[in-house]
């Protein structure tokens, strides 16, 4: 470093006028730190993929992928063991669909109210409360579902047990709601006011402005919010483990007890012999989950990109 500054100092004009190049240590350190941090994220991601592939793929030499994906029999300790994951996959779909169907309309409506209708005093007090909901541990949500919701679901639908995909989906919707509200509200508030003004000046009512101007203009942000919410519902483990019911039959209706993929991994991994067939099968389920969330993200990206191309200024 000293050599370098010396060589620069030989340029006479630069030194006399205080213009010689300085070696700003802080800048280098910060730059390097930020670079390492971003590198770390990528390394960790690739590492996770590598582990999932390495631990999960060997199962396919025992059970062909076709059987693994579409088989309905999950008997990991029978002789011979069978690993069909359709049950878990369908359960995850049910729970996610219930959560999405409940959370999206309520979340978007709530965001629209906060961004477009509510006076600022209401917005400033309500939004933090909604965001607080995101901070409740999933175990606590599970408790509430167990204690309050599942008896309600049981009596409403006349079921043998209230522990079902429906109850789990409802609780999951509560967990994805804060994300959807918060991100959609930000998206709506980012819409320039000139669009609203133009619509009002054309004789649009408040509802028409929200429905036909603000929401379409904020659609990219709102769909990102929905994808984040869906991602949360797919990946949530503790709540579904506690209240989805854990039944090992392919659920044909959301009111049945079921075992989503995350719950299957969490409940099975404790009994699995490290490196054994069941262990491999559970990792393969993890791989499926990873691919599902990846697909959701890619779709969201594609949607956003198309939206942007159409609407960007």
């Amino acid at each position, binding site marked *: 470093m000293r050599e370098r500054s010396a060589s620069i100092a030989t340029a006479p004009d630069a030194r006399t006028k205080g213009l010689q190049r300085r070696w700003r240590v802080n800048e280098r350190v910060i730059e390097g730190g930020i670079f390492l941090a971003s590198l770390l994220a990528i390394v960790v991601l690739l590492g996770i993929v590598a582990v999932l592939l390495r631990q999960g793929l060997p199962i396919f030499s025992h059970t062909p992928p076709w059987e693994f994906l579409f088989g309905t029999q999950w008997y990991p300790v029978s002789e011979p063991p069978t690993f069909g994951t359709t049950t878990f996959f369908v359960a995850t779909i049910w729970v996610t669909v219930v959560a999405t169907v409940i959370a999206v309309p309520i979340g978007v409506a709530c965001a629209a109210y906060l961004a477009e209708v509510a006076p600022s005093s209401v917005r400033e007090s309500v939004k933090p409360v909604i965001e607080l909901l995101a901070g409740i541990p999933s175990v606590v949500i599970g408790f509430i579902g167990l204690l309050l919701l599942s008896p309600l679901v049981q009596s409403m639908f006349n079921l043998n047990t209230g522990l079902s995909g429906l109850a789990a989906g409802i609780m999951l919707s509560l967990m994805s709601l804060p994300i959807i509200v918060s991100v959609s509200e930000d998206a709506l508030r980012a819409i*320039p006011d*000139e*669009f609203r*003004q*133009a*619509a*009002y*000046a*054309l*004789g*649009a*009512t408040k509802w*028409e402005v929200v429905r*036909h*101007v603000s929401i*379409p*203009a904020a659609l990219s942000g709102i769909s990102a919010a929905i994808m984040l919410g869906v991602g949360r519902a797919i990946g949530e483990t503790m709540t579904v483990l506690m209240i989805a019911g854990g039944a090992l039959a392919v659920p044909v209706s959301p009111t049945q007890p079921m075992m989503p993929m995350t719950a299957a991994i969490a409940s099975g991994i404790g009994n699995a012999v490290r490196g054994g067939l069941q262990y491999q099968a559970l990792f393969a389920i993890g791989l499926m989950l990873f691919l599902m969330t990846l697909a959701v993200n890619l779709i969201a990206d594609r949607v956003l990109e198309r939206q942007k191309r*159409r*609407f*960007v*200024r």
Partner: protein
Amino acid sequence: MKLDSAVTNSRPPQYRGTKLSTSHLSLFYGPCQALRDITLDIPERAITAIIGPSGCGKSSFLRIFNRMNDLIPGARVEGSVELDGIDIYHRSIDVVELRKRVGMVFQKPNPFPMSVFENVAFGPRRHGRVSRGELEDIVERSLREAALWEEVKDKLDQSAFDLSGGQQQRLCIARVLAVEPEVILMDEPCSALDPVATLKIEDLMRRLAEQYTIIIVTHNMQQAARASDVSAFLLMQGDICGVLVEHGPTSELFTSPKDKRTEDYITGRFG
């Protein structure tokens, strides 16, 4: 398309009557007074220019006529504003209906983030069921009226943001025309445009004035002199904004102003 300034300047205000009138109008934003005791008649099917220095309340005055000030919390109006003799600030007035009759073009072109077609179709779609065929007719007619059809007829499905600034502003005018208003308010519609686009808009305004009552707020003295039939000069006095100093036919106001302050302003001594 060429604007013959000699003809337009000598054109008498051949209006048939009064379209809008304010009487002892005052506007307050909370404790601040933005307009003070304005009494003014706006002639029908003519262009009325509102001129004055920045911050004198021109835009606030313009927004009186379609009640856009309603959207500002704490805004309060005193006095009366009449459209065809009807008090538009009366309790029984439906603001949505009022804004259909009194359209507005903004300072910065603000097309919606939609296709060209959807921008023009926005108003008609909101105001009742229209078939696709009718909608296409309305869009074409409005775009032709706004002198934009030839330029955009092949890109109706493209984003409005793909158009140039001047085209966007004419699209905004077409969007207003599609609602079939009686009055068009223009809030410095050319201030974000280049001179060529400005001339096109002025030319368009002249033609629209044969059918519509137009009120334009402008910073540009030449524009007011070129394009308007009647002018009104607003000024702030001390800390009170929005005092109407003088109004009358544009040719008189610009050649022989009655008030010394008007003369000072139009000759560029302040403002």
